[in-house]
């Protein structure tokens, strides 16, 4: 289990917790005081990362593509913040 958190400048806090097993993400959870609409999409993001190879490029790509969905509004943090906090969480496994 590895943890990372990121305080967005002038914004909110985004935290990430994840487990990597044999090079793949086994569990991942985001917490914090940001706003994501619709809220249930956080589970979709977590699901789409679960089972993904723990590589910088792949993770970055999944997160960036996810936040391009037109129905999503993210407030108090940016997709890049999610990328950053996830990658710093992954660092622990390198």
């Amino acid at each position: 289990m590895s943890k990372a958190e990121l305080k967005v400048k002038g914004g909110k806090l985004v935290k990430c917790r994840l487990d990597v097993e044999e090079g793949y993400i086994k569990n991942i959870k985001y917490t914090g005081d940001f706003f994501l609409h619709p809220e249930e999409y956080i589970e979709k993001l977590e699901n789409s990362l679960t089972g993904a190879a723990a590589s910088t490029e792949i993770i970055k790509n999944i997160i960036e593509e996810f936040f391009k969905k037109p129905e999503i509004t993210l407030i108090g943090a940016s997709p890049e913040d999610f990328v950053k906090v996830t990658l710093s969480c992954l660092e622990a496994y390198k």
Partner: protein
Amino acid sequence: MIWRVIPLTVNKASVNMAVDSAILDEVSAGRSPPTLRLYRWKPSAVSVGYFQSVNDEVNIEACREMGVDVVRRITGGGAVYHSYEGEITYSVIIPEDYEGMPKDIISSYELICGGIIKALNWLGLKAEFKPVNDITVEGKKISGNAQTRRKGVILQHGTILLDLNIKEMFNFLKVSKEKISDKLIKSVEERVTSITSITGVKPDFAKISQLLIKGFSESLKFNYTFNGLTPIEEKLTREYDEKQFSNREWVFRR
């Protein structure tokens, strides 16, 4: 459109959150009009945002000892200590396509917060909207607000601090005991305020309720009648309370 105003009620945390969900469903179904409700929390409670980790944010042990409720909201944002004596909470529940309501979420926060700003102004406070979701007086936060949009309906709820006991607040919100030093208290005092801290007088709940109702009705330009929950909303409230907000799985899901 004539709004419904549900005057100040006092409920436990899970019921307060269940009422919001029940009204949201009925506004969505077109059976209930746009609604403003005012409420307090008894016992005092901590609410955490949709995405927050309860264990990261709340001193569960202290809450249990003191009989403080813990509930997870359906809105994002941060943890709030809802002191029975020191704060009042409101909810505004309206269709997303309500006339004059911006599609843009931050603009709609600002419009709805306008009602609170008016009420605070009438009490002699120079209140300002601070994006994303705060209202400040003299640069210090006095009101926090959170919004969700579901089933074609906007639910915005938020809190207005009437009186603030920082030591009490940090007994329940998680900051390690050592950190509740004079230094931390001072830095919180520099960032958070209350009506009492500024005016020196604690407004009574009837007075602040009356000003909030007037403020919201002027800034959102509505006429209203006072009313309670409909029988369907009462039933939905019981269901949401039992199945969701009182359910440990929901409260501890993150």
